[in-house]
């Protein structure tokens, strides 16, 4: 039993719904009590879909338990078939129905419907949403992609690929797909099938006609792509094209498998990120301490972008996707840190604090943690929030995705030039801490300049002979406090903390101007 105040992932049948909702001509009959119908709102409210998900819930009640829940299930399957006439169906149980062991697969088979009916076994008490999506997609592909076949001859036609992974309720899946299709078109590669997004069961039957597969979200599509590799000998591209470097590698890998020349696509400056990152305004990004947490796909990709394309220092990296813990640990090791693998947001909060991050890139939950801690934050991963479905095109993948990432990751921080000028004019009458914006005071009262810049002298004099108790911060002398004020505010907090630490380590009871600069020299190495 696990105490959970909030969860990053839903149960596995939500993953199955994400696959079913992304597809056309597929219907999902879920053996579940009425409360489970809340899942509709994930798709209709959060994602703003204009139709109910293609799901029929049996909504059995307590009084049905003694009677015949199996009959209720069979009824629901028959009625769903008659009403929706799907090309194929998936059937399964949610957590409660799993306990009553009605065997949805067997019951549906007994109805002998004239369409493929694919049973799903999604253990609700061990697995979670992304695993559920992966398993569902794999089962669908296995059942519908057809038997083993030889790759089609390549002569006289353009290369063909499948794009696997985008689902409903996915983080920017809608927009990522547009970018990837654009890249494929530019490379001269035809897209055979995109799945699950927009695919029908019949489309899954055509998967074998592609030369290779592109796996956009390994959490969801790796298992299916491995099956296709075995069955049709289709190689897969698993590089997640998030960031300029990864997109470049992705293009090269696709080009190699397709036998085309990647040079025209990579020529020139396909993304603005490199120049924006090299332009002088970005120098203030250097070494910014960033904490990254999300699903494995995004956490891994964003860590690389943050370190190598924006010049941040990755001081924390983690994921709630336990299935990819190994990959995330390996990436963390490259940054010289230990990965945070957890699905308890309180652990993540503690890790953010311990890492002394200056920027948090996480999920909606980390956004709120960061708000509490007074840190800037950008959201880079599911779980989904209505804000994660922007009206504008906002991909993470491809070269345009890299542009979006530059803005997303940098905008929460103050712009470099702006920050520099504010620091420079710190004590200016117009820019000091107490001044209202100048455009608001033009016709009103004059901005109030503090009468005395001198900080008040400490009320209690601490005798120099008595060392402060353990961990109590050393007292700042007024002159040192005044000197500290001259340091630009955006590094002032760090200077204060470092100086106090320096004083503590040396058991200094008072901080003088000398201490301040000694500390600066000590930590500035």
């Amino acid at each position, binding site marked *: *039993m*696990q*105490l*959970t*105040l*909030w*969860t990053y*992932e*839903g*149960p596995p*049948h*939500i993953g199955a719904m994400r696959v079913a909702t992304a597809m056309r001509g597929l219907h999902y009959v879920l053996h579940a*009590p*009425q*409360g*489970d*119908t*809340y*899942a*509709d*709102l*994930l798709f*209709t*409210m959060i994602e*703003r*879909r*204009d*139709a*109910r998900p293609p799901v*029929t*819930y*049996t*909504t*059995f*009640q*307590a*009084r*049905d*338990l003694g009677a015949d829940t199996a009959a209720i299930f069979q009824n*629901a399957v028959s*009625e769903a078939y008659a*009403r929706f006439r799907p090309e194929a169906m998936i059937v399964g149980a*949610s*957590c*409660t129905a799993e*306990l*009553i062991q009605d065997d949805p697969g067997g019951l549906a088979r007994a109805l002998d419907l004239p369409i493929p009916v694919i049973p799903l076994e999604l*253990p*609700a*008490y*061990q697995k*979670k949403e992304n695993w559920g999506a992966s398993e569902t997609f794999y089962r669908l592909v296995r059942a519908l992609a057809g038997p083993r076949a030889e790759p089609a001859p390549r002569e006289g036609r353009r290369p063909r690929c499948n794009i696997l992974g985008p689902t409903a309720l996915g983080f920017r899946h809608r927009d990522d797909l547009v970018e990837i299709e654009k890249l494929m078109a530019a490379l001269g590669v035809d897209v055979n099938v995109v799945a699950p997004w927009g695919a029908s069961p019949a489309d899954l039957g055509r998967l074998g006609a592609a030369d290779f597969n592109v796996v956009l979200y390994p959490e969801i599509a790796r298992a299916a792509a491995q099956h296709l590799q075995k069955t049709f000998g289709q190689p897969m591209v698993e590089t997640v094209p998030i960031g300029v470097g990864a997109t470049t590698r992705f293009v090269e890998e696709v080009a190699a498998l397709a036998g085309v020349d990647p040079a025209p696509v990579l020529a020139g400056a396909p993304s603005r990120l490199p120049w924006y990152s090299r332009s002088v305004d970005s120098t203030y990004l250097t070494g910014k301490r960033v904490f990254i947490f999300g699903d494995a796909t995004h956490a891994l990709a964003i860590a690389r972008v943050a370190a190598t394309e924006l010049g941040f220092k990755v001081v924390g990296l983690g994921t709630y996707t336990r299935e990819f813990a190994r990959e995330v640990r390996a990436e963390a090791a490259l940054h010289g840190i230990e990965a945070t693998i957890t699905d308890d947001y309180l652990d993540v909060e503690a890790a953010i604090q311990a890492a002394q991050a200056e920027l948090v890139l996480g999920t*909606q*939950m980390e956004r*709120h943690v960061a708000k509490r801690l007074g840190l800037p934050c950008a959201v880079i991963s599911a779980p989904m929030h209505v804000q994660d479905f922007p009206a504008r095109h906002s991909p993470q993948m491809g070269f345009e995705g890299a542009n979006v990432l530059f803005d997303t990751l940098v905008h929460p921080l103050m712009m470099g030039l702006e920050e520099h000028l504010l620091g420079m004019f710190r004590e200016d009458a117009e820019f000091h801490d107490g001044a209202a914006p100048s455009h608001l005071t033009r016709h009103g009262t004059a901005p109030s300049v503090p009468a005395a810049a001198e900080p008040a002298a400490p009320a209690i004099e601490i005798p120099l002979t008595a060392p402060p108790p353990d961990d109590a911060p050393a007292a700042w002398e007024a002159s040192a406090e005044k000197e500290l004020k001259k340091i630009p505010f955006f590094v002032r907090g760090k200077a204060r903390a470092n100086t106090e630490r320096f004083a503590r380590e040396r058991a200094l009871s008072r901080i003088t101007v000398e201490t301040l600069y000694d500390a600066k020299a000590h930590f500035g190495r």
Partner: protein
Amino acid sequence: MNAHVSLPATDAACGVTIRQERGQRAVFCGLTGIVWLHRKIQDAFFLVVGSRTCAHLIQSAAGVMIFAEPRFATAIIDERDLAGLADMNEELDRVTRRLIERRPDIRLLFLVGSCPSEVIKLDLPRAAQRLSRSLSPDVRVLSYSGSGIETTFTQGEDACLAALVPELPRAAAEAAPSLLVVGALADVVEDQFSRLFAQMGLEHVAFLPARRAGAMPAIGPNTRILLAQPFLADTARALEARGATRIPAPFPLGAEGTTAWLRAVADAFGVDPRLFAEVTAPGLRRAEQALAPYRALLGGRRVFFFPDSQLELPLARFLSREMGADLIEVGTPYLHRGHMAPELALLPAGTQVVEGQSLDAQMDRCRAARPDLTVCGLGLANPLEAEGLATKWSIELLFTPIQGYDQAGDLAELFARPLVRRTRLEV
């Protein structure tokens, strides 16, 4: 709780047609009530004993509220518990202790049963007793079921309040007659009603639930109970079993509903009719003033209710009688004939009331009727909007203070807003 007895198709007394429907339902389970109950009882914590689905449901229904360290959580049952590798009662004790350490401000802890905990027959009442003993006197532990196999949406509040009833102090047999208003109301609404009852000369008025666990009201044979919400069947039964008498009344929605609700109390306590008129006149005048501009917007509009909160009947009565709307179909997940008798009597003759649900059939009827306004759950709203139907999400009617004179205008506005919005948009 959802068990239906078979009823005659038409209620001859009031000319309302009542039909029952069975099939797929699109409603929340009783766990959802936690979202407003934890705000109401300010030192109570709700620990759902359930699955990841339960946790996901509550966080999806609660929206951003979840980020503020709310007073609810889920003890997620995992495969070790089910396989018997872990003793579930020990696990529950461990989780509860950890929770109480984290939140020493908790005085009342509800263990809330879920579909999985009911199916595996985890004995939460016994666990609550055990934990209550070990955590006494700082924390009292109670239990109720919010499971979707037994409760629909607002029935979770009913189950929660019913669990409080045996804990209420006993009022002395010779105690002065008192009024107990039952059902969670917004504090502001509660305070308005308190003032009205005081002006009517009622000295002993209490509310269930109280705002703090230690301040729950006493109950006895001289207690008269007045339901403020239409979904409290079990709570009323438990209170009656403790000797209290229920004052039948319509529900305090709209000016007419509020007056009738207050009048039922005035009659029961022998308040002078002139005093009653004097006390209610200012509120009534303000309500009329606030409602007037919405009549033009809502009058003659055809309204369709999907079943959701059990508030549907009183809301339909308000829209029909005070706003002049036409009722196409009034769905309700469950119909308590006794508690709803005063409401049924006020509905226009020929109103189609449907108890229970068969989702696809109901959506077909709704599409065919092309209502001007459809009141439905969150999951259905955007799909219906995309089909060109204006909708009002019913969950907002539970989170917004809508009872009483000074909220009558707000209630009308909630229904008018989707219609007004459509007239503004040119895209």
